[in-house]
């Protein structure tokens, strides 16, 4: 009988020690993880909307409002995603009040980007991303559709996904821009082809 009770007790003791040790480790690392997560986001937001000094999160993990020194809202940052070849491509877009895209940031493989490795990752190269900088909504189109974006050879699906993602994001979040949003209202968005006859040229 002794050996049997010793069996249960030994398991119990080992579990106790393990539980104690783990809880100590958890409490120590928890703070660090939180800090890590926070400044990770801050870094990305400021990267995408450089002029903004501080951000306020309005929709959990999808929309932030950017403010400059004297707390004027100068733009928004939003996260959009579109179905790529092997999975959704998360994109972070910084949009100034004048609906001009400042910068965009695509999550790297580390952040769970599931694109076909090698080819799919080309969308993260600055040469492709630069095409989107300082562009208006209308210009975010493939060259053949009247826009200014050149797709990457051999990974059209991913390039299209990025373009559609950004367009969908702008359409959805432009109402949050506080500047002269009326000029944006009369955009007639033809959702089928995504092409728009905006009266921006005037």
């Amino acid at each position: 009988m002794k050996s049997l009770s010793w069996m249960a007790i030994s398991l119990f003791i080992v579990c106790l020690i393990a539980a104690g040790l783990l809880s100590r480790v958890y409490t120590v690392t928890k703070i660090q993880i939180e800090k890590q997560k926070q400044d990770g986001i801050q870094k990305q937001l400021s990267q995408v909307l450089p002029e903004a000094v501080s951000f306020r999160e309005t929709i959990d993990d999808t929309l932030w409002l950017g403010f400059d020194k004297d707390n004027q809202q100068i733009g928004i940052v939003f996260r959009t995603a579109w179905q790529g070849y092997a999975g959704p491509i998360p994109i972070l877009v910084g949009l100034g009040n004048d609906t001009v895209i400042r910068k965009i940031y695509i999550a790297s493989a580390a952040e769970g980007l599931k694109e076909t490795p090698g080819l799919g990752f080309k969308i993260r190269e600055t040469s492709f991303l630069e095409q989107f900088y300082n562009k208006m909504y209308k210009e975010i189109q493939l060259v053949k559709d009247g826009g200014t974006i050149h797709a990457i050879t051999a990974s059209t699906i991913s390039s299209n996904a990025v373009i559609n993602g950004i367009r969908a994001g702008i359409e959805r979040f432009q109402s949050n821009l506080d500047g002269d949003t009326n000029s944006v209202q009369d955009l007639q968005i033809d959702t089928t082809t995504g092409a728009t006859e905006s009266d921006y040229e005037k």
Partner: protein
Amino acid sequence: MTTNPLLIFIAAFIVNNIILIRYLGLCPFFGVSTTLTTAFGMSTACLFVMLIATWVTWTIYHFLLLPLDLIFLRTAVFILIIATLVQFVEIFLKKNFKALYSAMGIYLPLITTNCAILAVTFLAIDYRFSLILATIFALGNALGFGLVIVLFSAIRERLEFAPLSRSFKGYPIAFIAASLVALAFLGFIGLFGLPL
């Protein structure tokens, strides 16, 4: 992940097959799949344990760990449950179902170190499945595991007679054959729009 049960089943069963695409459960895969009967015995044992493990771990996670905010204990608790579960099942089978035990009993200790079982329990939690969906997910994975192991053991039995140089006999040729089977399974990506 999709919430349509059929899609989850197919994703777990073929598209994201647990052995060939997710690289899990390779140790038993190469160890046990030498003959058809052992492969079949192992897959039934795995199915049996995977289902029970998913139910038990899912309930423990959602009714014990989550409310108490002890998620960090997840690894320890899950693997402890699986290890003792395997011993329970082994003794239970030895006692009541002698025939079943003699057919599949020797594989049960192997299952404790089978990465596939623990991985399925973790994925079921990470994908935030409800209990029913988690069961379907586990079922899909177990059948996927069984399918690949049985299919592969037939290949390996045939490989016994293949005229090979001495250094390729045994594991090397098994790996290369597995590579071809994995290549075939890669073809399933995008079936019903399911991502890799």
